[in-house]
């Protein structure tokens, strides 16, 4: 009984291991753990360092970009004590939890290494992330202003519209298109070339519509871009008063029936008529006019029934269509109306350049209508351009257009077809005055420096 009582008491006892035993166990466990932990720490320190290095490099490069942003806005990020001297450090905007500071200096001529005709800027930027620092040295040179003025409106796409673009009933475009609105392809329509729609807009495909990546319509495609499109308004300068309009019909002669052509209220026969108003050219019934001037100012051009407007071989013709307000029109006027086998083309098929530029109106609707087997083309190596950012452009019924077109809206219907013309991508809008811009610096030399800050700033680079 006493034994049982003892055992019971012993079992009830809460005493654990003796203190020395526990301490020994603890030390042994810590020893075992520390070996693994030390190896792991050693291994991971490299990973941490790599991450720090890459982050610091990114931060340093962001400093270069921040400095270039200043220079490309025409504002120096800091003021050097003398020309060609270093200035800084400038503390840049913090990126990814790191800190960045940069130094910069302007140079020119031989110092730029890339030519004497440019200015250059050298930027040394130091990025620090979690105690890891990296420095980079970037030199950037100016691009001549002429080059930085940018490409023409048709550089990347042959058909442009500020608002929606729609292709109906077997219409085909054989070049890239760009619109600020939506691009809709209905009923067997084909878009053959890269398409771009406005930001947040869509390319809509109707029944049997097709989208191809190439102008020959052979490679199916589905990717379209989203980007903003701007089309500057036409600046006609003094073309409304200083032009070659006086050549009708004395130098720019009519072939065909004289009563069928009318300019500025008079027929080619010299008789007053109401069939055309001021600066309106109307041609009908198997007649043709050959343009020999270089600048014309129209209010309206109407061509019907197998008529033609020829451009002399080797000539370059710009026809401005004045605003509806200046011409005394009401909203909805059609300023270019080609119908029934009429055409604008070169006289001999040799290279010519024709630009039809529409001033349009911000408050009044204007239209351009090409209809019924009309052709504005020649061999597809010519520069035929319709530029009408404030007008609605409509190609209908078997119209074949060879060149580039820009409108407020563009609509193709009933077998209408547009081909790009070689050279239209280099078309530049006459009279377009770009605002004065600061010199644009483009990096041409990138080197990594030693991590430690030095003096002068590019020491160790």
């Amino acid at each position, binding site marked *: 009984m006493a034994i049982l009582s003892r055992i019971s008491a012993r079992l009830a006892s809460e005493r654990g291991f*003796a203190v020395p035993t526990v301490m020994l166990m603890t030390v042994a466990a810590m020893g*075992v753990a520390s*070996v693994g932990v030390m*190896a792991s720490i050693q*291994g991971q320190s490299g990973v941490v360092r790599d991450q720090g290095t890459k982050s610091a490099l990114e931060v340093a490069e962001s400093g270069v970009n921040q400095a270039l942003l200043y220079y490309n806005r025409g504002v120096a990020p800091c003021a050097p004590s003398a020309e060609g001297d270093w200035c800084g450090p400038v503390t840049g905007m913090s990126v990814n939890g790191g800190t960045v500071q940069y130094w910069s200096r302007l140079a020119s001529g031989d110092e730029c290494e890339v030519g004497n005709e440019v200015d250059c800027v050298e930027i040394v930027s130091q990025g620090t992330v979690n105690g890891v620092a990296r420095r980079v040295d970037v030199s950037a040179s100016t691009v001549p202003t002429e080059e930085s003025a940018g490409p023409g409106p048709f550089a990347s796409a042959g058909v442009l519209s500020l608002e929606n673009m729609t292709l109906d009933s077997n219409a085909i475009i054989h070049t890239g298109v760009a619109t600020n609105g939506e691009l809709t392809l209905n009923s067997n329509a084909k878009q053959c070339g890269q398409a771009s729609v406005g930001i947040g807009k869509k390319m809509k495909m109707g029944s049997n519509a097709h989208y191809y990546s190439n102008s020959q319509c052979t490679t199916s495609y589905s990717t379209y871009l989203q980007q903003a499109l701007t089309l500057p308004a036409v600046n006609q300068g003094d073309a409304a008063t200083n032009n070659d309009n006086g050549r009708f019909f004395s130098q720019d002669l009519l072939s065909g029936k004289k009563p069928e052509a009318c300019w500025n209220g008079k027929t080619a026969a010299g008789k007053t008529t109401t069939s055309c108003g001021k600066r309106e050219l109307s041609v009908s019934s198997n007649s043709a006019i050959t343009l020999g001037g270089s600048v014309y100012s129209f209010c309206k051009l109407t061509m019907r029934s197998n008529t033609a407007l020829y451009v002399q071989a080797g000539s370059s013709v710009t026809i401005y269509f004045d605003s509806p307000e200046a011409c005394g029109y009401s909203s909805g006027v059609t300023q270019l109306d080609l119908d029934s086998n009429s055409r604008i083309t070169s006289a001999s098929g040799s290279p010519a350049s024709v630009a039809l530029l529409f001033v349009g109106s911000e408050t009044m609707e204007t239209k351009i209508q090409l209809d019924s087997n009309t052709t504005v083309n020649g061999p597809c190596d010519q520069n035929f351009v319709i530029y009408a950012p404030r007008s609605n452009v409509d190609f209908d019924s078997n119209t074949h257009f060879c060149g580039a077109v820009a409108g407020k809206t563009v609509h193709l219907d009933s077998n209408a077809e547009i081909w790009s013309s070689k050279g239209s991508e280099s078309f530049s809008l006459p009279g377009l005055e770009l605002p004065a811009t600061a010199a644009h610096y483009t990096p*041409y030399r*990138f080197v*990594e420096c030693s991590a430690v800050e030095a003096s002068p700033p590019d020491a160790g*680079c």
Partner: protein
Amino acid sequence: MPRARKGASALRREERGFTLIELLVATAAGLVVIGGAFTMFAGAIHSQPRDSSKVVAMQDARTTVDRITRELRQGLEVVPSAPTPSASQMAILTYVKQATCGGAAASTSIPCRVTYTCSGATCTRVVSQPNGSSPGPTQTVATGLASSSVFTYSPSAADPGYVGVSFAISGSGQPFTLSDGVTLRNPSEES
């Protein structure tokens, strides 16, 4: 006084030692615990050199990858021929901190041609003039490679804008692969 005597008597009773059975059980349990701990400790001690060696191999590989990616990052172009870029060989025109290409170290960078050649388990590096002449000494920059296929090119080896570097190390029976890659920052500059 009788109270103090009573307390001393109680203390004496509390100083009773463990019984033999208690000691045997405690000793056995202690031996088991200590034995287990010792086994783990011995295992850790045994594997520690192997782990350390792997860590050292990793750090060496990292240093080499760092060096190559740095040279690629500030590279002007991957030399298209002699040697033709391949998985095991690449020459890059890049900035090197040397007084003359292949010569003594300097604090500023000049454009030189750096050629990496990987064969078997080893990669070497040679710095020469941009046209490939006057090569400097050949340095061994990586050893213990499981494969000499180190470089990848994007979009193509003929005109890469991005070069990938991948070292497969077969160190101490614990193989590992270290990969990195960079975009050339000076690609438009002509050699």
